[in-house]
């Protein structure tokens, strides 16, 4: 088991290094001068602030030092939690802006991932039970996975917010309210949260249902299922074994899908103008605030790596084979 975790850790460490290197390389090796284009398009009128920002960025980039030194100082800054200063919200540090947006993204992302995974697996297991169910759940599942996240978000916003008027269309909370720990405000937060959450949940659902259905069918055709059947075991028992075995690849699937789901959350947030990382990406793009953009990039990558690691640990805990390896190694 430790070998397994060690290998995984090595991959994550390497991924992190690669991500940071990409992040460092892109502004330096792309054509053009990012600092100048950033400053000229950020439309900052105060010449003094402009001058200060220019020298700040030239210093931060260390454009006069050798490349390897720039690379090392980039890492050094990273470990100090220094991701630079935002242009669009000058002079606020990038890290502060990101930390303000992260809770909103997590609030949508976590329940959507977990619930869609649980419900999708249930549906998939049902689908493998009969031909009629299979012929309804399967096509619906495929259409759902083929739906772009932002389009479903648009449809839900149109139907439930604009036409029916049940939910607010945009933002994280009503601007008439002052953020406070009151029931009124919390209810308002929940109402704004619901549609982004729902659209994420629905799109992700289809993929899990299909994955589970395919895995269950595969397991039901495996030798042990046939053997159990030949022994006269009740079908319910066979299905339970198949379900348990089919869960394992679904956990790996969760890790693999994570990047897609996060990208989906970012797009969904943009539709609802939800104040999470997705809206921040759009703002930083329209304002050409590359430092903010790169900061978000690093943040998302670190988040994906941590989540993947957690999933790997869970995998070890539930997979009997890795557990056996552990006790076998000790004996």
């Amino acid at each position, binding site marked *: 088991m430790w070998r397994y975790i060690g290998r995984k850790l090595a*991959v*994550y460490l*390497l*991924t992190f290094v*690669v*991500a940071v290197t*990409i*992040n460092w390389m*892109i*502004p330096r090796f*792309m*054509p*053009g001068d*990012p600092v100048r284009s950033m400053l000229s398009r950020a439309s900052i009128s105060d010449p003094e602030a402009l001058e200060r920002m220019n020298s700040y960025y030239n210093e931060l980039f260390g454009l006069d030092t050798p490349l390897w030194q720039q690379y090392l100082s980039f890492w050094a800054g990273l470990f100090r939690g220094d991701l630079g200063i935002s242009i669009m919200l000058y002079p606020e540090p990038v890290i502060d802006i990101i930390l303000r947006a992260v809770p909103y993204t997590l609030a949508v992302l976590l329940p959507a991932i977990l619930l869609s995974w649980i419900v999708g697996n249930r549906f998939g297991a049902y689908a493998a039970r009969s*031909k009629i169910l*299979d012929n309804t759940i*399967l*096509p619906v599942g*495929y*259409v759902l*996975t*083929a*739906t*772009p*996240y*932002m*389009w*479903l978000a*648009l*449809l839900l*916003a*149109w139907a439930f917010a*604009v*036409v029916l008027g049940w939910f607010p*269309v945009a933002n994280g909370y009503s601007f008439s309210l002052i953020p406070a720990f009151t029931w009124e405000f919390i209810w308002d937060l929940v109402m704004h949260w619901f549609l982004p959450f729902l659209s994420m949940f629905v799109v992700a659902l289809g993929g899990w249902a299909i994955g589970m259905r395919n895995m269950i*069918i595969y397991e039901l*055709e495996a030798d042990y299922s046939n053997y159990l059947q030949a022994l006269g075991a009740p079908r319910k028992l066979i299905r339970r074994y198949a379900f348990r075995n089919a869960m394992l690849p679904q956990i790996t699937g969760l890790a*693999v899908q994570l*990047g*897609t789901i*996060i*990208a989906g959350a*970012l*797009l969904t947030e*943009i*539709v609802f103008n939800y104040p999470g990382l997705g809206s921040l*990406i*759009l703002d930083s*793009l*329209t304002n050409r605030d*590359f430092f903010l*953009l*790169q900061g*978000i*990039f690093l943040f*998302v*990558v670190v988040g*994906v*790596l941590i989540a*993947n690691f957690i999933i790997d640990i869970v995998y070890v805990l539930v997979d009997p084979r890795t557990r056996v390896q552990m006790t076998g190694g000790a004996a």
Partner: protein
Amino acid sequence: MTDVAGAPGADGAKAPEPAAERKVSETLHFARRNPKLLIGSSIVLGLLLIGLIGPFFVGDDPNAYVGPQSEPPSGEYWLGTTSFGQDIWAQFVYGLRSTFLIGVFGGGVAFVIGTAIGFVAGYKGGIVDEILNMITNVVLVLPAMVVLIVAVAYLDARGVFIQGMFIGLTSWPWAARAVRSQTLSLATRDFVDLARLSGRRTWRIITTEVAPNMSSYLVMTFILLFGSAILIAAGLDFIGLGPTNGVSLGLMLESAVAWSALQLEMWWWFIPPGLGITTLVGSLYILNVGLDEVFNPKLREL
């Protein structure tokens, strides 16, 4: 792209005639009887046809301001007009065309990289496998879309081909993994050993012995990559990182949101592009299930 995809078919013709004939006719027999394959492929072909010939029947410039503003669908403007009086049907057919282009190109790049790495890793094994595996895992964990956002944001000139290139470069890992595991199981078979003993070059063994034996699998891999490239491109277009001058289904969604089609209840502006993407990618997936059932006898009963 044609090098790898073309290889299996070209080589299949060299197989003993009667056996190959029977296999082809059997495959066709099941293909004709598979509703998923038929429905999926006819929708995809229908959309392809609209994307191919549609642009000849609408004006040269899909973004031209031709009609009245904000008009719902009518006999004259089939899908209505935008707030600026652009014909949405014209945008749709051009957008469909670029959607197919980005799918073929982005999916093709990913397919070439993924299968090449998968074949070499699975066939060579050992240290080569270890290294390629490490690379695959690293790219697999990186969230492709977010990498793309940062990379594409810095580009000044953007077009379908650059976008497809970047999408291909980030979305190959799972294909590499899948091809690798298939190759692993084939690489130890007798006929591959025989080819190895006869002293043929690695690349020739892979293209003439290994790849033809998993050609159906490769076709399905390409279809999935094709579909996911379309979805990724739509996402990039939606946040304003699409082709700088042109039209695509994702860009249509972007401008619909940017000019508050939602609040104005102009449903005809944002429903067609999204529906186009969903229908196309969804039918690709369903077509793929059909293909799987045709090629894999085990799945036919259920």
